[in-house]
């Protein structure tokens, strides 16, 4: 196990720069999730860490050693691929033991290593099968087993759950997290799914267009997103954004679209009258008599909660309630954001304005 330092790393394909100076410190034993929309450079960064892509500038170090010019096999990392990349002509045991075999380990050493990993992942009854004879979840576990056998310094996961069905994905998510709690191996995990990121990570790195938008624990990112992109990306359903301007009338407040009055805890300094974006998460709306009037468009009950799509000042917003209301399309309700939990962003830069 060891720490990983990514310092001002850039990557260009020809003249096209896809990573514009990314720095991420990763502590020993930490579970870091790189998350972002497709094309943000997260997979490229992971492949650079693995040594499958070269580094245009900047440095990556594993432990104390800069690995820019170190061959992939010398980096002591193991990677789980999105399509698992299991060798189709080898049994599960051979797949898992392949790296040891290449290292020139003795047969009993290989079988011990494979057995140990198979026990951790409950793969023992499948060891003599071929990848084709396995289900998606089993293949996924074999791919992880192959990584565990190597006992590497760092685990790399490249969207490992995206080929699984929804139910299995949730189960594997827990399994991977549990595995990490047991092995405590430094892990870098790439996904585009913010729920995976929120549930598994010690630290989330939100990437967008080749830069790091924000880095922090899941709850930090949820509670205080640094900008509008992170605010919209983390959380489901996504945060509602309403354009308008700060307008304090005695107490702090915000004038939304079509003059809708929305509450603010405190206006940022020198912000009076300035255009801004008001962000409120769906779960932070309440029904209150002093709320803003909204007309219900669609009601979607999920059992544990109800999602309500409504027009607020002409803009569609979504609110989530855990209590059961009797709502019908066309009903008028009064929605009030919790002023302590609203977010204010600069209209042009998207930067967070309130503390």
């Amino acid at each position, binding site marked *: 196990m060891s720490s990983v330092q990514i310092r001002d790393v850039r990557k260009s394909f020809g003249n096209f720069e896809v990573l514009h100076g990314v720095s991420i410190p990763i502590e020993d034993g930490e579970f870091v999730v790189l998350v972002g929309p497709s094309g943000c450079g997260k997979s490229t960064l992971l492949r650079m860490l*693995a*040594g*499958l892509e070269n580094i245009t500038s900047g440095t990556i170090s594993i432990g104390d050693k800069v690995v820019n010019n170190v061959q*992939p*096999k010398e980096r002591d*990392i*193991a*990677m789980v*691929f999105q*399509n698992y*990349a299991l*060798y*189709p*002509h*080898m049994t599960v045991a051979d797949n898992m033991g*392949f*790296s040891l075999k*290449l*290292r020139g380990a003795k047969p009993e050493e290989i079988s011990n290593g494979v057995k140990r990993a198979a026990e951790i992942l409950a793969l023992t009854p499948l060891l003599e099968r*071929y*990848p*084709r*004879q396995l*289900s*998606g979840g089993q293949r996924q576990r074999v791919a992880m087993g*192959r990584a565990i056998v*190597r006992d590497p310094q760092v685990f790399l996961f490249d969207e490992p759950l995206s080929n699984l069905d929804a139910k299995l994905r949730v189960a594997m998510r827990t399994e991977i997290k549990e595995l990490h709690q047991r092995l405590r191996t430094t892990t870098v995990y790439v996904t585009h799914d913010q729920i995976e990121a929120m549930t598994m990570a010690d630290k989330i790195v939100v990437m967008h267009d080749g830069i790091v938008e924000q880095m922090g624990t899941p709850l930090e990112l949820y509670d205080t997103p640094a900008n509008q992109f992170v605010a919209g990306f983390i959380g489901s359903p996504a945060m509602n954004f309403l354009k308008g301007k700060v307008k304090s009338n005695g107490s702090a407040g915000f004038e939304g679209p079509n003059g809708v009055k929305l509450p603010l805890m405190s206006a940022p300094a020198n912000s009076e009258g300035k255009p801004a974006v008001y962000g409120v998460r769906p779960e932070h709306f309440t029904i209150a008599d002093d709320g803003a009037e909204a007309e219900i468009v669609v009601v979607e009950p999920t059992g544990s909660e109800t999602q309500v799509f409504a027009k607020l000042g002409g803009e569609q917003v979504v609110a989530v309630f855990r209590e059961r209301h009797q709502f019908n399309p066309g009903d008028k309700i009064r929605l009030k954001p919790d002023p302590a939990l609203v977010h204010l962003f600069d209209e042009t830069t998207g930067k967070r304005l309130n503390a």
Partner: protein
Amino acid sequence: MADVALQPRTARRPIREASRWDLIKANRNYLGFWFMLPAMVFLVLFLAYPLGLGIWISFTDARIGRPGAFVGLENYEWLWGDSIFWLSVFNTLLYTSVASVIKFAIGLYLALLLNENMPFKAMLRALVLIPFIVPTVLSALAFWWIFDSQFSIISWSLKQMGLITDNINFLGDVTWARICVIFANIWRGVPFVAITLLAGLQTVSPSLYEAATLDGATSWQRFRFITYPLLTPIIAVVMTFSVLFTFTDFQLIWAMTRGGPVNATHLMATLSYQRAIIGGVLGEGAAISNAMIPFLLAAIMVSWFGLQRRKWQQGENND
């Protein structure tokens, strides 16, 4: 609301039981038969009939212009004691084995090379096909000139360089003639092997190589443990075809040497042609042709077992 919109305007017709003719029309086997018929007629006319006729003629003493009478195995008994026939068998086996092994080696090398990322990849891949698209007789004629005893460009170049003083008698010397026809066959056959193996290589997922790289495999180990095992089904197919084509080769030999010198390059196909068409002894020629059948069957059996789905290819395919 829905029942208003869906009110039938006319009375429904009573449900009719399917007639026999309806069932036949919907029967996939019946339809399949009609789709298969053209191919079947073609195969019977141009493959099964000539093959059957060839086997029949080999049991007669037919000559050109004379139907001939049934003579049983006489033609085969005669061949058994014919040293030229046995020489042609030896030549064919030598020609096929040497040419196939070298074609496989060069073809695999080229395929691996063309599978790498390099400049002008598409153009190079197209260039490799050139020997394959030139008509065989044309390339044979070109080789005939290249290996000509007086005007050979090879002899001329070597003389200019001062390496030899006299022309090499390429097609007049037993060993040289064999080397030359094998060389020409390799030149012609490599593109087929290379392009087919290249197609096979491209079905191997790049992530397998990446996984192997991370597992610590050198490029030789990646070939040995990943590429080669995954390519074996394709290798079996391409080498079967290559062996069949080489074993039955006729054009190249006939255009370059006509089996000479002193029958040193006579293959079974050329000997059969010479005896049956040039010599007019149809029965004996047919017998020589039929003598190829056991060898070809053996080659097909080898590939049949080589092509058996391996254990790792079995099982459900849900990826």
